[in-house]
């Protein structure tokens, strides 16, 4: 840990792009936190420290950074310190030691006024049990943050109404929270956080109190909303599926430590230790693995101007019955089958222009495998993986897909 800390300290000057930077952050609950910090450095576990000093380790030695516009998930079981860590970011919980920078500003050094400013303008929170004010109407709940900032009534209600429209609760402005369903209440919670137009959203198990169907729907809506508003989101959850679905990166926590930080695919395919491995065991790989992970690279391909004879030989060598056709820049033009190439050769064709078929199943490197399986089942051609310029990156054939999944699954287990 000490090693990585020094490395990161050197990098600090170049951290302009990073929205949030957290360094060696610890939170000990109790009267003698320093005692506990010392013991934990000596390698004692959370339980041993509780028994010895009656101090509870909330978070220990958390190091991470969050980039602007990223959805960063803090995941772990209850008691792993994920909610505590998030509350340290706006100092609802006062960290015991460590540093937090938001936009390069040292949060730990803020005075009372600065702290209010941070909570009012920069980071807004969404709560697990919604925490809507029951004595206020929906719109007055949404306008709460603006009211606290001292915005005039007319203006703040207008703004609140706009945000309500955005989350699809236009007609509910004058209802009271207890007249709304759970999913709708949490949309109000989200709207209340968005009304301040903060750069950062802190979402604490925001969808955990909702039933599974509504939860999935809300996750989808959050992602759709995020593509519009482009906030930096810290999302706390204990649900791995949720983390994998919405997280750009995930920090997995256990007993107050961050065990691993990585993209969903990193976490699944290269679990840092036994704990993470156990955690991800039950995940449905087809939803997580993307085309890039299982495609064959480089793809067999021939140029358009090459003759049917060359195409046939390439197919014979690769043991395949059709082959992709590309231009000079390796941009995908289509596909030719062995049958057509053989006929073209008989007729003495000089190039492949006549027989190329443009009806090829396509995928981007990010397409999840779950979407590719039905495509492959229906098509007699393999799937071409291309980038934004239509450049051929790889190819996915039925056999390779299965092999890829088995291989990745094997790595995980």
């Amino acid at each position, binding site marked *: 840990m000490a090693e990585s800390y020094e490395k990161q300290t050197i990098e600090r000057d170049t951290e302009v792009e990073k929205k949030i930077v957290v360094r060696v952050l610890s939170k000990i609950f109790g009267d003698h936190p320093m005692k506990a910090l010392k013991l934990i450095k000596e390698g004692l576990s959370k339980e041993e420290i509780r028994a010895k000093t009656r101090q509870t380790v909330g978070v220990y030695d958390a190091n991470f950074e969050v980039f602007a516009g990223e959805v960063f998930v803090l995941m772990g079981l209850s008691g792993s310190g994920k909610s505590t860590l998030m509350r340290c970011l*706006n100092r*609802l919980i006062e960290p015991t030691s460590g540093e937090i920078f938001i936009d390069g500003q040292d949060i730990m050094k803020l005075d009372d006024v600065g702290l*209010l*400013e*941070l*909570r*009012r303008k920069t980071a*807004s*929170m969404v*709560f697990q*049990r919604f*925490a*809507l*004010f*029951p*004595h*206020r109407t929906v719109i007055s709940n949404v306008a*709460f*943050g603006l*009211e*606290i*900032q001292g915005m005039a009534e007319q203006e703040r209600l207008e703004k609140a109404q706009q945000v309500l429209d955005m989350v699809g609760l236009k007609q509910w402005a004058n209802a*009271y*929270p*207890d007249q709304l369903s759970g999913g709708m209440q949490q949309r109000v919670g989200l709207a*209340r956080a968005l009304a*301040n137009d903060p750069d950062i959203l*802190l979402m604490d198990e925001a969808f955990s109190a909702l039933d599974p169907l509504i939860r999935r729907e809300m996750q989808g809506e959050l992602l759709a909303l995020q593509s519009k508003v482009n906030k930096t989101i810290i999302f706390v959850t204990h649900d791995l599926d949720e983390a994998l679905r919405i997280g750009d990166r995930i920090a997995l926590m256990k007993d107050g430590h961050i065990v691993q930080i990585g993209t969903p695919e990193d976490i699944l395919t290269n679990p840092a230790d036994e704990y993470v491995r156990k955690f991800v065991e039950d995940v449905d790989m087809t939803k997580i693995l993307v085309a890039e992970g299982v495609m064959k690279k480089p793809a067999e391909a021939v140029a358009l101007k090459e003759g049917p004879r060359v195409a046939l030989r390439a197919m014979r060598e690769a043991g395949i019955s059709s082959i992709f056709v590309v231009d000079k820049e390796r941009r995908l033009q289509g596909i030719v089958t062995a049958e057509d190439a053989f006929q073209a050769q008989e007729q003495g064709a000089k190039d492949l222009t006549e027989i190329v078929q443009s009806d090829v199943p396509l995928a981007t490197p990010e397409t999840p495998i779950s979407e590719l399986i039905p495509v492959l089942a229906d098509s007699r051609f393999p799937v071409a993986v291309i980038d934004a310029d239509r450049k051929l990156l790889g190819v996915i054939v039925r056999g390779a897909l299965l092999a890829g999944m088995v291989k990745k699954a094997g790595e995980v287990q």
Partner: protein
Amino acid sequence: MSNIINLPKIPIGKWVDAFVVFLSTYFGGFFDLVTEVGETIIVSFSDALLWAPPIITILVLAGLIGLLTNYKIALGTTIGLLLIYNLGMWEPGMNTLALVLSSTVLALVIGIPIGILTAWNDLADRISRPVLDFMQTMPPFVYLVPAVILFDIGEVPAMVATVIFAMPPVIRLTGLGIRQVPAELIEAAKAFGSTRHQMLIKVQIPLALPTIMAGINQCIMLALSMVVIAAMIGAGGLGGEVLRGLQRLDVPRGFESGLAIVIVAIILDRITQNIKVRRGAKAS
């Protein structure tokens, strides 16, 4: 008994007397000021209630009550007050009401901030608890003694004794109501950058309002009972009528004034229990 244990009597009574003498000697000016302010408050209330002809006053009160609660209570109030007027108890009735209202206002002005303090500060809570227990277990009569010594007899000492007697439930229920506001709502208010003051005004008090209202209701009822007792130190009003009825064994007069007290009590209780609290702040 003292012979058996062979101890002299502990002169608690003398100490209290000495303390009271000390207070009236060195803080006489303060007590004069309280008397003046108290009198002004009481006189304003009773002047307001007795200024117009009774019928007009009854209609105005009924209208106000109808706005605050509902037409049923307004109707009941009208009938009750008309009965009091008919019994010839209008003036003592309004004097009693004035004394109850001024005592309640003072008790709220002092009690609600103290209640908020006990909710915010554990030390204040720990200090206030035994004091409030003491105040509530003390029989109401006992409050009259120091009140008379410090303020002489009349309406002001009656008001002072009433304020002290009626205040504890306000303090307790205000503190309770604020402590009962769910922690997650407090956290939410904090997370959006509320100052302590904003938290109190926009979240804690509105959510504690049903409980605080229960405290106000109890405060008024206690004030009424104390005001009647305080007739013994010259508070007048309906209590004075009861007292006169007692002294002269005048059964009709005693009963009629007692009935008038009951009517005032029911009216005050109905109003405070039914005041429209904004929706959503219902006790839950």
